[in-house]
């Protein structure tokens, strides 16, 4: 397993798509800093009485949402690139245990996604604090890092969950296009559909969608999003695990059965 992990780590590092995705995440963080600067600028320009009307989305939350999609795409490309080129046959002759290949890819992708996600969320938080400073802009938490850390860790876990979902979808569909399309449906379309369901189903469905789990896991709820907040912390964690475990199990079975 160590060999498979080392090999998959080397593979992930030596394709260009990895650095492209990570660069996009860096750009997202940069945009958040720009947004913070703009918010601070607006706030300074407003008469004190009207400053209360200015509300800006929580910047780490936006980074979390966008980085989820970026790293999910990274997860897709970590597998679909091999199916597209026929390289999967090379991979399975080098490492004949397909379960081990999937597991190694999953570990590598999850670790990369978690670390990248955490770095991006923390960088966004730091940029926001530095730029907005002690201006009490609505929507921006002035809480110290120690108080925010559980939420940031939950967001990073959520990003890793999306990345693994992407990886498993690529293993299932063997196509980057099909995997990314499914992913975007889960990431963007399903929350909108869920939000427009009649009550109480809108909140019920909104609570179990992957994008809503980080807030529920951290116990902060989802004050600014379409997601619901009905799950307890353990239930949110269980839902997160299920979003990975179910597609993973199906992918493992299909990989072992199909001809490469």
């Amino acid at each position, binding site marked *: 397993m160590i060999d498979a992990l080392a090999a998959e780590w080397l593979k992930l590092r*030596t*394709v260009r798509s990895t650095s492209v995705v990570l660069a996009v995440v860096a750009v997202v963080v940069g945009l958040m800093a720009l947004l913070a600067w703009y918010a601070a600028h607006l706030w300074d320009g407003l008469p004190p009485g009207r400053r209360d009307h200015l509300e800006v989305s929580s910047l780490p939350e936006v980074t979390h949402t966008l980085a989820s999609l970026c790293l999910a795409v990274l997860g897709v490309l970590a597998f679909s690139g091999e199916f597209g080129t*026929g390289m999967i*046959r090379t991979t*399975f002759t080098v490492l004949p245990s397909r379960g081990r290949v999937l597991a190694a890819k999953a570990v590598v992708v999850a670790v990369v996604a978690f670390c990248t996600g955490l770095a991006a969320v923390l960088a966004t938080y730091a940029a926001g604090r530095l730029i907005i400073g002690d201006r009490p802009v609505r929507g921006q938490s002035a809480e110290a890092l120690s108080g925010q850390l559980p939420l940031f860790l939950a967001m990073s876990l959520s990003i890793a969950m999306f990345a693994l979902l992407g990886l498993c979808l690529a293993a299932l569909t063997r196509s980057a296009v099909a995997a990314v399309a499914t992913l975007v449906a889960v990431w963007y379309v399903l929350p909108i559909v869920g939000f427009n369901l009649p009550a109480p189903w809108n909140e019920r469905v909104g609570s179990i969608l992957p994008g809503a789990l980080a807030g529920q896991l951290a116990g902060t709820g989802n004050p600014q999003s379409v997601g619901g907040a009905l799950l307890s912390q353990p239930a949110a964690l269980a839902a997160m695990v299920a979003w990975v475990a179910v597609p993973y199990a199906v992918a493992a079975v299909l990989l072992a059965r199909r001809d*490469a």
Partner: protein
Amino acid sequence: MIEVRELTKRFGRTVAVDGLTFHVKPGRVTGFLGPNGAGKSTTMRMILGLDRPASGEALVGGRRYDRLRHPMREVGALLDAGAVQGGRTPLGHLGWMARANRIGQDRVVSVIEQVGLAGVARRRIRGFSLGMRQRLGIAAALLGDPGVLLLDEPVNGLDPDGVRWIRELLRGLAAEGRTVLLSSHLMSEMELTADHLVVIGRGRLITDTSMRELTAVRDVFVRSSRAADLATALSAAGGTVAAEDGGGLSVRGLDPVEIGDLAARHAIPLHEVTPRGASLEETYMRLTAELTAEEANR
């Protein structure tokens, strides 16, 4: 040693490989021949555990490929030189393979040098020609210094120098006692490279024989100014004689020495005595034509 036993593979209703049994022995190059769709690549994929057989088994060194702990150290394979990700360099591509099979990185550098890609070791594979990709694929097959090699059409896209290089490489590897299974559609090249042949058609074994037997001397072509007298004398001595269209005689059952001695005894002048073997191409065409005819009759 590769053992293929009663191997069968179906794709839907099509039987791609049908109860195929053969052994590939070490110390010689075994050519794997058959028309397109005969099941060569499917058989190779099953040997490598990529396709699951419907029944039967393929063993490498007595074990199933997917039971090998470090398969590249025991079996080197080149199935499709295009099966690489273009964004990687040869160092990266061979690097992860080496890491997965606990092969040292110094070995990566040495196989890259061996196949003549040292100058492009840090370039992206995307820009490589088919010939360079074949060399990279061969480097991957050699990476683990394996005792068994499986190569599917390795000379595709290689220039004449490259073709000769592969031939000498494979013959050298077989001479070291390794097992080499090589498929190719280039009959003249196969004739120069292989010692033994496995020919399949429609998923079934047609023949499993040595190159020498397949291309053995078939007849002796003789020209003489007194062809009719010579034909009588040769027939009397037990030869089977047939006149050829362009003049001259095709003689079976007598070797050139016997023919020459006989002609001298009868004082018949000889203008040409040529022992003729069948070329691999002719024999192959005959073997696969029989198969096609048999299919048509069913």
